[in-house]
């Protein structure tokens, strides 16, 4: 464990207690996890991997941890101590099955193991997105209809709210049902009274909180102390009176006791103190006035923002809220029942049911895990939501050793109900139990010291140190890498505000410029061979593959993509989920719709216009406009082709092609059909040549892949399913692309846990708060709805305003963390692309501006600046662009000189055709049909052989049971009683014949005989198994090989028939002789006639 720092060491070895580690970005979290896991095993010889549960955030992370562990254990196996070795050997084999999983698959495994305890079907499946959307839609419709139908109270909702909105809200609530239920829980009992008092309390708390924070506020205290200590010389002046009032009120507030109402109104008074007009005009009083103004502003800002009390709208709203909850619960009911009947679970169920299973008293599941699970390690703990953390609590017994590691500053999954509050509550619980149980890893092994320094200074300014539970406490990182400071490492690229003509740039222009400057930054660095550090030490010149461009939303990609493409910079956009909206997918859908239903003219237009055929619109216009009412476009197209008019050649081709495909579509599995079409049309190659070509041509193949996965869907059904998925806004990811030496575009969210040598952060101006929705729910404050008002004075419900405030605070806090995540991805180089003027009041851009105090930097040249915060400072370079930024030279990819080409492989390898049997047995019925069939010869043949096998020398007669069960054993052909009967009688007949035959008497007298004696011949390398029907040794020791034939033919044809089989019998005889030296004569037994025929002598015996 040499490779561990002292901090890490502590985190690893503290296995005697529960530990919560806040691990800063790049502080070797995973390394510690692995080591701790090993340490657990090392120090508890009796412990096996099955006693440890490790929870990671993604499957990828789980996989990585598992492989790392395995590698580690593999090393430990190398020891001379046999016991040790055996031990690690066992761990080594078991690690593949070890519980190193995401929380969801953990729950899934619990449910699979203990379906009983969750009372669910053991064969349950996870519902897919389409399925879920369908279920949700139906459930909601169902609820609406119910309400309208029995005119329930909820109908009021439908009257008041836009029904489509309602529908949308309900979907939201049901998709994140867990959070919604939690929100309902927050309110408690669902009555309006309850809601009112609840809201009032929350409002008071909030007011109180903000008064106190105001009093604590730095500016306030500074200003106030000035006000307090500088009475205005002229006591008679109103100014002095107001000052007095302000001082008195503030001091009273500072005491802190007294009725809240009273305090609040005092606070409001302060907010209303206006000193503008008072005091002398000569400006002597300006300081004191300024100071007072500062205090007043702070107060009034708050009083403006925070509602004083509930209003009438609130009472309407509360009513609505209750109705909405009822309505939603109705829908949820239906959703539940439907899901259950289909054996489906959604992701919320996984966790909730697992919790239920573990929670119920004397739950065998819980008992089981408490016995087996001795340690639980949770990674990315900051993104665990309440339900999940509850589940972990349940899994752990008092004896279980907990290890929770994460970085509250990187918690960015609010929308999944995760928040820092959960993290902090555990922190509290642990530390109260044992102070040493809270550890931290604050050394960044990832980033260059200058980058670390910058981030520290920046975020000490941005993340306020407040203790609120939903905020992350800022903790500085320290750089583990020792490298000289370098202000070039962090670049702030300031985009121009005006174009060369000096007028304001339009938003679109700015975007374009931004894209370009990102592209420039990248290509310049590559050209200048900027150095990046290598993990193993030393440096190398930077490549495209080292760059990541991180943005907040997918729609921010497009301008950057265009710019990169323009400069021929190779890039890949990761996590694009717009697959279903791609044109090439439309094309496939249209194609399949048409092929399965040629009347679909609209689809046909789509295909003809696609590059697959590239029919120009004038031709379509012609075909469509020359009459032919009521005839489908396809019909008309065929007619037109008949006419052989000049100019129609292109469609003649198309017609031939399509007609063939229509035929194929009816008889080929859809995947095969598509594959053929793609290969024949080379559409994938065509797509390569279009913008974003790599993606598009791969997407085409992805459809083929999807088709294969849904093999049981017909052509039409598959097309339909594509359409459905789109309707339900199912997100399908694009086909994977090369992520090698190419610039990576991704959202900050998807960059979680990754690191890149160079990171560019453009599009920083997006407002940090999303626009207010009419419905809000959160476990912290419950639920609020904004009423719709037509009244002139537009007063929102206070409760709604308050929740909006709260929500915004959460959101801002989270967005700050998001920015933190973004910046901490950078290893060696970080570039921020900023506009000179932040538009939105709260945005990444705004924060950067404030923190770096950009307004004071001069924009005209490249210059080095310093960012200062209370405890940190760091240098960074500002590089400002003029409107006409010199766009970097396009990286040339000149086609290499034509190489010598080896054509030996180009031809397809001709198929050596297997001679296809003319036909397999065709359809014969199981049940007697219109005309009674007799069996094929094969059936009665095999049956007779089976019978003969049971004919022994002792008992010539076979019991009824045997005869029947043998017939029965002939399988599906004779499943039906009638058929069975027929076969049995057939068998009887042949047996009759047999008993009066020579063969029968031969058997009776034989010394011994073998039925169907199998033997294996190995000649050179070809082997063959044979089994002659019967082998008899008579009392004189003469051997005979007998073969049964049940063919029906005219008896006079006996000789010819026998001749057919002679060769085969010869072989038997020959083989027998080779194997045993026995000379055997070869007989054929013709069952129909009971004749025994000597195939050698060609005579009847």
């Amino acid at each position, binding site marked *: 464990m040499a490779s561990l720092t002292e901090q890490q060491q502590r985190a690893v070895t503290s296995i005697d207690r529960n530990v919560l580690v806040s691990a800063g970005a790049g502080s070797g979290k995973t390394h510690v996890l692995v080591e701790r896991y090993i340490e657990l095993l090392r120090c508890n010889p009796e412990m096996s991997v099955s006693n440890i549960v490790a929870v990671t955030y993604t499957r990828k992370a789980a996989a990585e941890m598992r*492989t790392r562990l395995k*590698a580690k254990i593999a090393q430990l196996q190398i020891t001379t101590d046999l016991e040790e070795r055996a031990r690690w050997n066992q761990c080594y*084999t078991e690690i*593949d*099955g070890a519980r190193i999983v995401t929380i969801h698959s953990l729950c899934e495994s619990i449910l699979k*193991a203990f*379906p*009983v305890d969750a009372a*669910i*079907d*053991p064969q349950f499946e996870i519902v897919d997105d389409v399925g879920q959307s369908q279920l949700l839609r139906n459930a909601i419709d169902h609820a609406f209809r119910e309400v309208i139908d029995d005119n329930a109270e909820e109908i009021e909702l439908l009257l008041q709210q*836009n*029904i*489509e909105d309602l529908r949308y809200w309900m979907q939201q609530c049901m998709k994140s049902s867990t959070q919604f239920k939690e929100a309902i829980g927050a309110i408690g009992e669902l009555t309006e009274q309850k809601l009112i008092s609840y809201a009032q309390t929350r409002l008071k708390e909030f007011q109180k909180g903000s008064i106190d924070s105001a009093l604590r506020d730095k500016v306030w205290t500074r200003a106030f102390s000035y006000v307090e200590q500088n009475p205005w010389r002229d006591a008679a002046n109103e100014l002095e009176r107001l000052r007095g009032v302000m001082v008195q009120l503030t001091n009273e507030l500072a005491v802190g006791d007294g009725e809240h109402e009273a305090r609040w109104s005092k606070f409001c008074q302060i907010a209303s103190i206006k000193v503008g007009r008072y005091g002398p005009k000569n400006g002597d009083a300006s300081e004191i006035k300024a100071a007072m103004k500062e205090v007043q502003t702070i107060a009034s800002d708050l009083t403006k923002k925070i509602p004083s009390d509930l209003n009438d709208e609130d009472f309407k709203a509360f009513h609505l809220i209750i109705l909405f909850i009822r309505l939603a619960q109705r829908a949820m009911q239906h959703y539940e029942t439907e899901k259950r009947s289909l*054996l489906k679970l959604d992701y919320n169920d996984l966790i909730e049911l697992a919790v239920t299973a573990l929670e119920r008293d004397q739950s065998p599941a819980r008992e089981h895990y408490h016995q087996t699970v001795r340690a639980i390690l949770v990674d990315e703990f900051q993104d665990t939501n309440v339900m999940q953390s509850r589940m972990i609590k349940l899994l752990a017994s008092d004896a279980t050793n907990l290890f929770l590691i994460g970085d509250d500053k990187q918690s960015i999954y609010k929308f999944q109900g995760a928040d820092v509050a959960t993290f902090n509550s555990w922190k509290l619980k642990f530390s109260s139990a044992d102070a040493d149980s809270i550890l931290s890893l604050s050394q960044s092994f990832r980033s260059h010291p200058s980058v670390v320094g910058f981030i520290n200074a920046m975020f000490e300014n941005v993340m306020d140190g407040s203790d609120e539970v939903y905020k992350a406490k800022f903790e500085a990182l320290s750089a583990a890498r020792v490298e000289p400071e370098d202000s070039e490492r962090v670049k702030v690229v300031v985009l121009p505000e005006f174009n060369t003509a000096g007028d304001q740039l339009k938003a679109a222009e700015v975007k374009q410029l931004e894209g370009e400057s990102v592209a420039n930054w990248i290509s310049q660095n590559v050209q200048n061979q900027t150095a990046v550090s290598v993990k193993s030490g030393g440096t190398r010149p930077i490549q495209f593959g080292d760059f990541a461009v991180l943005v907040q939303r997918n*729609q921010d990609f*497009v301008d950057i993509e265009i710019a990169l493409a323009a400069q021929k910079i190779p890039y890949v956009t990761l996590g694009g989920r*717009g697959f279903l909206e*791609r044109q090439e997918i439309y094309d496939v859908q249209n194609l399949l719709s048409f092929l399965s*239903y040629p*009347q679909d003219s*609209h*689809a046909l237009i*789509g295909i003809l*216009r696609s590059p697959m055929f*590239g029919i120009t619109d004038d031709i379509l*216009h012609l075909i469509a*406009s020359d009459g032919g009412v*009521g005839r489908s*476009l396809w019909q008309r197209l065929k007619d037109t082709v008949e006419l052989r008019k000049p100019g129609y050649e292109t469609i003649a081709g198309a017609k031939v092609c399509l007609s063939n495909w229509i035929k194929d579509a*009816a*008889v080929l599995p859809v995947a095969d059909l598509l594959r053929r079409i793609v290969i024949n049309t*080379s559409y*994938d190659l*065509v797509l390569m040549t*279009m*913008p974003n070509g*790599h993606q598009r*041509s791969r997407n085409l*193949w992805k459809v083929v*892949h999807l088709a294969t996965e849904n093999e049981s869907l017909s052509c039409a059904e598959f097309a339909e399913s594509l359409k459905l998925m789109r309707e339900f806004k199912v997100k399908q990811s694009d086909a994977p692309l090369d992520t090698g030496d190419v610039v990576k575009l991704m*959202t900050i969210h998807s960059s979680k846990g990754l690191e890149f040598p160079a990171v560019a952060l453009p599009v920083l101006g997006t407002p940090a708060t999303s626009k207010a929705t009419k419905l809000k729910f959160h476990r912290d404050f419950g639920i609020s709805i904004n009423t719709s008002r037509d009244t002139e004075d537009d007063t929102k419900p206070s409760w709604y305003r308050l929740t909006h405030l709260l929500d915004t605070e959460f959101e801002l806090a989270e967005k700050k963390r998001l920015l933190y995540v973004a910046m901490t991805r950078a290893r060696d180089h970080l570039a921020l692309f900023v506009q000179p003027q932040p538009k939105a009041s709260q945005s990444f851009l705004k924060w950067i501006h404030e923190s770096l105090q950009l307004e004071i930097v001069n924009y005209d040249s490249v210059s080095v600046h310093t960012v200062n915060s209370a405890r940190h400072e760091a240098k960074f370079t500002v590089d400002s662009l003029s409107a006409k930024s010199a766009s970097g030279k396009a990286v040339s990819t000149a086609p290499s000189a034509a190489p010598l*080409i080896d*054509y030996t*492989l*180009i031809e397809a*390898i001709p198929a*050596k*055709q297997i001679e296809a*049997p003319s036909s*397999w047995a*065709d*359809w014969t019925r199981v*049940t007697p*049909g219109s005309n009674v069939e007799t069996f094929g010869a094969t059936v009665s043949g095999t049956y007779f052989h089976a019978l003969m096998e049971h004919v022994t020398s002792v008992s010539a007669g076979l019991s009824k049971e045997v005869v029947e069960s043998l017939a029965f054993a002939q*399988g*599906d*052909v004779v*499943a039906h*009683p009638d058929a069975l009967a027929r076969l049995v009688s057939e068998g009887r007949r042949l047996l009759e014949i047999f008993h009066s035959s020579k063969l029968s008497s031969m058997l009776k007298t034989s010394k011994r005989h073998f039925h169907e004696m199998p033997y294996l011949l190995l000649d050179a390398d070809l082997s063959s198994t044979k089994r002659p029907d019967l082998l008899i040794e008579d009392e004189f020791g003469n051997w005979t090989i007998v073969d049964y034939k049940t063919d029906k033919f005219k008896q006079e044809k006996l000789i010819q028939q026998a001749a057919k089989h002679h060769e085969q019998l010869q072989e038997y005889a020959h083989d027998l002789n080779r194997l045993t030296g026995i000379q055997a004569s070869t007989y054929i037994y013709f069952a129909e006639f009971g004749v025994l025929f000597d195939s050698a002598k060609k005579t009847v015996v």
Partner: protein
Amino acid sequence: DLNHIAGMVNFTGTHQSVLDLIDEFERAALTPDDVIRRLEKTSQSDSRYMELARIYAAYKSELAQTGFEDEKGLAFRAREVLYSDTFKMDVGLIAVDGFDRFNSLQLQVLAGLARHSDALKICFDYLAPEADLLQEYVWKEASYNDLMRTLGSNVSTLEMSGLTETSRQRIKFRAIDRQFEMEYIARQIKTGILKDGRVPSDYLVVSRNIRSYRAAIASAFDSAGLNYFIDEAISLRALPLVQFLNKLFNLAANKFSRADTIAILSSPYFNKKNIGLTRRDIEGLDKASMRMNVVASRAQWEDVWHSSVDGPRPDARKILFRFFDIATPPSVATDHEFVRWVEDVIEACLINPEPNPEREPFDVLEEQRALIEIRRLIASLVHEENILGAQEQSIVKLLGRLSHLIEKSNFRKTPRTANSVVICGADLAPNQLAKEVFIAGLADGEFPKRSSQRGFVSSDEVAKWATFDVNIQNPRFHPAFEFALFNSLVQRAETKAYLSCPLSDMGGEELTPSFFLTEGDSEFEHSSPAIAPYTSSNLAPLSARDLVAHYGWKLGSQLGSQDLPAHPEIENLRDKMGAPLSVALARANNHSTSSFNGYLTEYVNTKAISVAVPLRWSASKLNEYGKCPFRYWVSQVLKSTPHEEPEDELDAKAIGEMYHKALEFFYLELQRQGMNLSFADHDTVRETFDGAVDKALVWLEEKRELRRSEFWYYQKNELKFRLQRFFEFELTSAQTDPDKFAPTLVEAKFGFDGDESFPPLVIQDGEKSIAIFGKIDRIDVAENLQDYPRIRVVDYKKGSSPVSDADVVEGRNIQLPLYALAVEQSILPGARAIEAKYLSVQAAAPIGTHYFDGRKKRRTTYGGADETPVNLLHVTEEHVKRIVTGISAGDFSVAPTSKSVCTNCDHRTICRIKEMTGDGSEADNGGSE
């Protein structure tokens, strides 16, 4: 008498899960009594485990009653017999080989046999732990010990060493996805065959789970021109023939839905002749049923013949319904009866697949085998009934079982060429040496594969059972099994073993290379990046496609200008691609004036094509051109809309019409009674309104093509409800309306020929005068304070997307301004249109208002209070001129006046706007919503 597992006894999955458990009991040679006794010993008498044991007991006794044994049951019997003293058998030698593991039952039978033979020799591949450095055999350890225990006393073991490690090369690589992975493999193999004189059988290609590779293999090997055979069971359902039969069997259950019926009738598998329908009949049925909105049910199919125009011929009716009869199963039936029905249907409706020149012989053979398989399945139903005795079941149940059987049946394809490379799943790989072995998909979680045991045999439960001294641990699920399997695969390679893994799967999820691949090398992912696509395709192309792909991938749009090597196949391909390439480029380079993008002016000028110019223009059509010329072209010139199967759900059109009707009736009635919303007594107007709504509903119900679904009752309520909601809104706004607008005309037509009550609106464009017709939902006249009547035109919208003045200015939406002009000019000459209002019935709210008299806007509940000084009416006239010129000139370019018009446009999938404006990544904030 179950209570621990009572909660789930009725789940279908439970039964399967119990059977799995019973199977494990039997493998472990445990009789119900054994299990129960051990549970009692460990005082589990009252636990779910005891309940399961009792189920096991019950199962056995019931089986016994039928007089049958399950397959393990036979072994139990054999064991009895072999140990009974009465049984005599005398064998010299019993030799056992080919077991990679033993279960207790097998061993006990062997032990039994041993009692009757002089010698028992068992060949078992195994190494003791201390010798087993690679831990290849740990998974058999239990098996081995069991073997020793069972046969122990008189076993002498003799060690034989296997063949020593050959000098085999391990080649590791990664590819972007499974397909590229397979393309690389295909390249190796093709090279080997064509250059090193290898034969297909020299190669073994495996992956742990072949399913996820099927698409990749087929695509890669097909493109490479290699013959291959994927040795893996496929779902019967994958065969269109079976899909056809399945549809057929369920046709009646699906109430003869139009889609299914037409699909069946027009399928090549359908025996038209036998049923007596011609192709024309079927086309007729299709058309007519489409026109008559047939959704499902015989009743609706009847309607097809009520439509006079070119419906199907009368006799087709009789025939169709005879077919329906055939396809209708008895509602309850015994298995025998059911199977008989199935066979009758097949006999009557299916053309037996026969080899024919049109088709691949092997495809046909496959279909024949599929049929035989199906026969086997239904036979099994009959069998079952023979054994358990006949009992009637609902047809739903029977159909369910049949499709379940089809679902579960494992159907194998047969190799089609003698020289194909065999590709199969790891556990099916033939146990023989191959020159080169390819093991694909070595990703964590795939290979090694995680145990998928769930329910009563999940590893947790198995562990639990062990604590009751019931050992049902199946070595097959031992964690080390996977490694053993992997290793044995590698060892089948004589010269080279290729190990590979894709970076991510098609679902976009990144994959982590499995430990089998990395062997603990933490740098592996960095040191072996994915092989770049088509790397050597230009040097030694596997096909013309392959070579072109190389350049296409590298050069993108410049591919066109790249001169490709001269080779017949390549030139060939190039010619084939020529046209498509130019189209692609033309669009990509945004040639808004190209005939690929609807711009047909040149053709019109050269008279190559003509655009029909109407005498009178429809206002709404002009409006559509205003949104997007191409959109107009497709809907109005090509007259094409996306194909929608008729639905039970009321379609938007019907709903819209119904709303209009209701309001028409209502306002007419008001006028008749001389009432006015702003002063009438509420209750009476409400009554009148409800009256109107009911009337409208009746009107709607009388339309033949209206489909009443089972929800019709609710839908009616919802329609009512929405309208009432709207009415309340109308009422309030009427009262608060300062201008006291009063509805005077409803559904006012102007310029309709045939109905000349009002002349068309005429707009002069120089010499040309443009005549326009249309229908105005409602015209309100304000309480008159001026000397001229001030009017407001109103339009009811079903949807609720807002309309703003900007829409008029940019020509996106000029409908109401046009109407306003019409009113002033032709309907109420002398009146002044001062206002136009769009009302959404759905949302019961105004969604847009224009003021034509420059009044200051009042506060509106919908956004966009944009003050536009421009004269909207004038602007509108200009637009009309522009539009008419555009249409006549054949300018139908793909040019939406704003993104918003695209959002709910029918032609999104065919206009290819995205190719002109760069394929935009769809809005979606990386999960942060």
